[in-house]
């Protein structure tokens, strides 16, 4: 039993159809717990008031925006090295989700920034690098859409994902050099002493777990859709041949 078994679409479909309801249920429960706890059962911050609660959507979506790209990078590499179709289809499935997460992070940040910083947008390194990340997602998805042959598209987007990762990282540090930050440091960390107070931290951890589960649910769902649409195309092609 190894992870490579799931390179077989049939095996992947079997396991994912069994796992999907569980992951979905878990995602719903954790998201509801985290968000309801965060929105209704935490005190208002003494300076930020109720706007502090946007953190329960902002931080997890920002985390998933980056992790989705990291996942795409790994699955693209697996496709380039071992030619497993499920892997690259998972990358294709993850891209729009990651892009949406980036947008959610940008928008919730803007909504929070308006009362707190007095502006919807600032050319702060973190904000800017998220905007750049959004552009990378856009290019990746556009390339998938533009190429007709599925294997060619898979190869080209994978190469773009690898090169894009390097340049996205470069841009991230380039904008740090380019402008001073307005954004605060990390809200949560495993090793530092100072972070968000415990009353806010616990629902935040749960929301983050919820977003991870939501992401897994959506990726499984979309990958299954991709596999099905490929099967459909193969069936149609066979019918035309006959």
């Amino acid at each position, binding site marked *: 039993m190894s992870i490579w078994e799931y390179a077989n679409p049939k095996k992947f479909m079997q396991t994912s159809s069994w796992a999907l309801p569980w992951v979905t249920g878990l995602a719903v429960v954790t998201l509801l717990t985290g968000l309801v706890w965060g929105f209704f059962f935490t005190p208002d911050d003494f300076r930020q008031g109720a706007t502090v609660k946007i953190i329960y959507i902002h931080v997890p979506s920002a985390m998933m925006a980056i992790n989705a790209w990291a996942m795409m990078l790994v699955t693209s590499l697996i496709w380039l090295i071992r030619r497993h179709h499920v892997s690259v289809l998972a990358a294709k499935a993850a891209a729009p989700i990651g892009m949406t997460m980036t947008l959610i992070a940008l928008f919730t940040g803007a909504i929070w920034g308006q009362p707190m910083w007095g502006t919807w947008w600032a050319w702060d390194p973190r904000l800017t690098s998220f905007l*750049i990340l959004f*552009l*990378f997602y*856009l*290019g990746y998805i*556009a*390339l998938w859409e*533009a*190429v007709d042959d599925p294997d*060619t598209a898979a*190869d*080209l987007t994978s*190469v*773009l994902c*690898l*090169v*894009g990762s390097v*340049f*996205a990282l*470069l*841009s991230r540090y*380039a*904008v740090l*050099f*380019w402008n001073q930050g307005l954004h605060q440091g990390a809200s949560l960390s495993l090793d530092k002493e100072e972070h968000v107070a415990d009353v806010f931290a616990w629902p935040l951890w749960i929301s983050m777990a919820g977003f991870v589960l939501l992401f897994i649910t959506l990726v499984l769902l979309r990958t299954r859709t991709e596999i099905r649409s490929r099967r459909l195309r193969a069936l149609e092609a066979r019918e035309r041949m006959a």
Partner: protein
Amino acid sequence: MLALLLRDLRLATRAGGGFGLSLAFFLIVTVLVPFGVGPEGGILARIAPGILWVGALLSCLLSLDRIFALDREDGSLDLLATAPIPLEGVVAAKALAHWLTTGLPLTLGAPVLGVLLHLPGSGFAWLTLSLLLGTPALSVIGTFGAALTVGLKRGGLLLSLLVLPLYIPTLIFGAEAARRGSEGLATATPLLMLAGITAGAVAMLPFASAAAIRVNLR
């Protein structure tokens, strides 16, 4: 490889090659800016390094789709791919030809356009130096984008969408070096970073471009 380079240079400079088009585009973009922001010298001097860098970048973008598209159409790309020299070498030669016909003229033309935008006297040398260091990266990254989109019928717009995000780090360090130079600040750090990006891109991206072309010719 030398023969390929000379061939590309000849194709670019002779009739219909589009040599000088990007330079003309650069001129027009620069001329348009004062109409957009007003003729006041102070503002123009302040934004001149950035405008010239963005203008050079866009002019560079303009000629990217010619790198492989014409060779693909008349079949010479297939011949080049099966030629005894490695495809990586072909890509590198083509990127060099693109730089010689686009990046270098832009670099040499930028100071002249700097006069139009009231670039401060101290900025000219740094602007030229930063463009000289940065434009090779633009050509190599652009060649990668052209390699990705070579098989597509209407790849031009997609090409810009793919390439422009990749240009961001180069633009940041290049424009920063030019800006600092024109304001009389130390320029060593951005220039070194810019040179680093160029060196890294020149060293590694031809492999990615060659891989993309192999996929597209499959």
